[in-house]
């Protein structure tokens, strides 16, 4: 008998992987692969319907799968994937919001020329090629597999219990979004520039994350979050190394949540990217980034929380103040929403700083409530148009509420929710986050947060005043009647905002029952 064959079984012990527990991610990845093959083998005219069926089918199947898994609490695959309550809740939210963003991507009635994406991203803007491709009804259906890969990355990002898997998932999540950000049908130069800036700063941030990971490995001898936590409690002597590691990892993740001073990419990327992609960036990516940030800080570095909370205090205060103040000066609605999302990230960080089960639950509640309101707001932005495309300049919104009362009312509702006015989901979210922080003694932080939210209420109210208390002029944009896709998104955003605002208990129960991170 061959000696190599004889010795082979001793070489490897395969680690058990609970494929049932990670099946939601596997479904998305499998459908993404099928979707790539559809691009290769299905005729051009049939691609879009096939892709839509695949994408929405995948989201539906995954969501059902997540519901059947709701009680699962385990760590699998050699400790690299944690399927726990917070991960499952965030995965569910990511799926729902990604499905809504996919509806915005599928919208065809709003833009007179069809898709929100360039007919061919490879054709030069303004060239004969581009005009021909548009006229011949070409559509860039490759965005669908890209969307699926990105969503798979987000889902892994929130359940990665290992810094290496987290890093790989971060890239799987980000690369497709860098690409999609540059594929807008209109204002393509802006879109490409947004893509480049987002890419370069994203790569810069992931380099920081990676260096932090290297230092963590140097400290703990492992990149598994549980092992890091053990090392942190076992040997406090090398705390200089550990602090540098935490700082570097946090910088990488704070870039993704767009916290000040790592927010510079946000306004440009949000403004330039196609609105459907912006909606994806502002909701699902934010949820995924907060999930990963909390998992790293709570699970791996919970033992030295007194060392990193002061740093996070400063970042949170800067984020709330700078985001709110700069948002006041913006004259473009997408840039204003970008700075608003920066400010909101600051409010969420207040909940992160609580470092408690209550803080975790409140952050989960906040990101879900904020996600639905935000996607609704971007859906509204996508239907307000004039001859040149989306009318994002605020001067074109003057009197819009009188011209189209329903749209104006929905956007006002969402703005009130952002501002945290009672009877909206935003109020309950802010209340939960602030009370968790106070319970943990961060009273001064909450005072700053309340002041910042008063400032932020000002610019949200400004949009409402502009829409309802000024007369429509020649320049006022008009609201295009969208297809069912965008209508569903706007309705979902508004409904969740109101229902959660009036009856928050079911969602509160969900996030409270999610429990803590496993390790």
């Amino acid at each position, binding site marked *: 008998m061959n000696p190599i064959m004889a010795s082979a079984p001793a070489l490897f012990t395969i680690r058990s992987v609970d494929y049932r527990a990670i099946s939601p991610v596997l479904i998305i990845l499998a459908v993404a692969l099928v979707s790539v093959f559809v691009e290769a083998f299905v005729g051009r005219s049939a691609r879009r319907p096939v892709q839509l069926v695949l994408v929405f089918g995948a989201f539906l199947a995954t969501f059902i799968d997540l519901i059947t898994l709701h009680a699962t609490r385990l760590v699998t695959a050699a400790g*690299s994937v944690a399927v726990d309550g917070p991960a499952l809740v965030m995965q569910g939210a990511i799926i729902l919001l990604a499905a809504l963003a996919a509806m915005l991507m599928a919208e065809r009635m709003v833009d007179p020329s069809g898709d929100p994406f360039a007919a061919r991203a490879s054709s030069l803007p303004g060239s004969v090629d581009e005009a021909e491709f548009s006229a011949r009804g070409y559509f860039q259906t490759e965005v669908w597999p890209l969307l699926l890969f990105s969503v798979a990355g987000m889902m892994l990002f929130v359940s990665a219990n290992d810094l290496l898997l987290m890093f790989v998932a971060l890239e799987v999540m980000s690369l497709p979004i860098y690409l999609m950000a540059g594929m807008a049908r209109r204002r393509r130069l802006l879109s490409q520039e947004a893509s480049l800036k987002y890419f370069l700063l994203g790569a810069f941030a992931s380099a920081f994350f990676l260096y932090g990971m290297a230092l963590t490995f140097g400290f703990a001898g492992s990149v598994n979050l549980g092992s890091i936590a053990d090392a942190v409690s076992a040997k406090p002597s090398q705390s200089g*190394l550990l602090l540098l590691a935490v700082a570097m990892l946090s910088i990488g993740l704070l870039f993704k949540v767009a916290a000040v001073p790592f927010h510079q990419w946000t306004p440009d990327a949000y403004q330039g990217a196609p609105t459907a992609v912006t909606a994806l960036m502002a909701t699902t990516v934010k949820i995924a980034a907060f999930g990963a940030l909390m998992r790293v800080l709570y699970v791996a570095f919970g033992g030295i929380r007194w060392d990193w909370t002061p740093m996070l205090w400063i970042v949170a205060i800067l984020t709330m103040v700078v985001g709110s103040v700069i948002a006041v000066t913006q004259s473009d609605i997408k840039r204003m929403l970008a700075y608003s999302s920066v400010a909101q990230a600051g409010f969420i960080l207040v909940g992160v700083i609580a470092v408690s089960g209550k803080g975790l639950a409140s952050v989960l509640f906040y990101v879900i409530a904020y996600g639905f309101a935000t996607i609704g707001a971007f859906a509204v932005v996508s239907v307000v148009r004039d001859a040149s495309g989306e009318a994002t300049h605020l001067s074109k919104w003057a009197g819009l509420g009188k011209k189209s009362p329903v749209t104006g009312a929905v956007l006002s509702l969402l703005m009130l929710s952002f501002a945290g006015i009672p009877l909206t989901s935003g109020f309950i979210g802010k209340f939960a986050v602030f009370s968790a922080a106070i319970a943990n003694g961060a009273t001064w932080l909450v005072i700053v947060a309340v002041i910042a939210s008063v400032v932020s209420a000002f610019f949200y109210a400004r949009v409402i005043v502009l829409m309802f208390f000024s007369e429509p002029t020649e320049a006022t944009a008009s609201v295009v009647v969208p297809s069912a896709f965008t209508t569903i998104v706007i309705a979902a955003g508004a409904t969740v905002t109101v229902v959660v605002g009036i009856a928050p208990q079911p969602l509160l129960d969900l996030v409270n029952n999610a429990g803590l991170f496993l390790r």
Partner: protein
Amino acid sequence: MNAAVQAGNVGETLVFWICAFFSVLGALGLIVSRKAVHSALWMALVMINLAILFVANSAPFLGMAQIVVYTGAVMMLFLFVLMMVGVDSSDSLIETIKGQRVAGILLGIGMGLLLVFGLGSALTNSTSVGLDAANGVDKGNVQGIAHLIFTDYLIPFEVTSALLITAALGAMVLAHRERWIPRLTQMQLSRARFAGSGHPGNLPNPGIYARHNAVDTPALLPDGSTTDLSIPGPLVARGGIRPVDHAEVDEVAAITDGGQS
């Protein structure tokens, strides 16, 4: 070999300081070169030196991978794009935001000092375990890495495939140009050339004159007349056609006639 290197001998110290010098030099060259192509060459220097340092750190597999993946593939891709963009592509020295450059340098140096002194003080008392034991478990460095990839790091390994597919798909979406008109055949092209009113054959060569056969001189046709068709387009656009001195043409003709008679 690893054991000898591990022992902390003079050889490794020498290798370290030489490679450290060249890699820092290369890194500085990368960020101060005005031309991107020079930066790319400095970058290649850094990568080769890092490969040597990897090998010196008991990572022979990574050293090779560094050469193949980074200097072989990644840097070639960079250089390829630089050739496409134009090797002259250089940076403007104008600052769009005043003081940004100084602020960036100060921030970077501050971070560097923090890292160097932070790591230096945190690690001074640490002892090195060395990788001989770890490499010995699977009887080799490559085997050990393979073992880990297929056990502890199986899920990340599988997920990287999604990354590679995304990269391929993305590059194709952004760079692949589809045809919207069918490619013309040779026959169709030649038909089109003769059907049009243009010049079907080769244009006449640059001027052939007794004194001037420069490109900017109109060509002399067999019948003795001159034609501007021989002048390259850009010269015509710039108005750089050398005027034909007809007296000279006649003089040449007279001399040739005289010679014959």
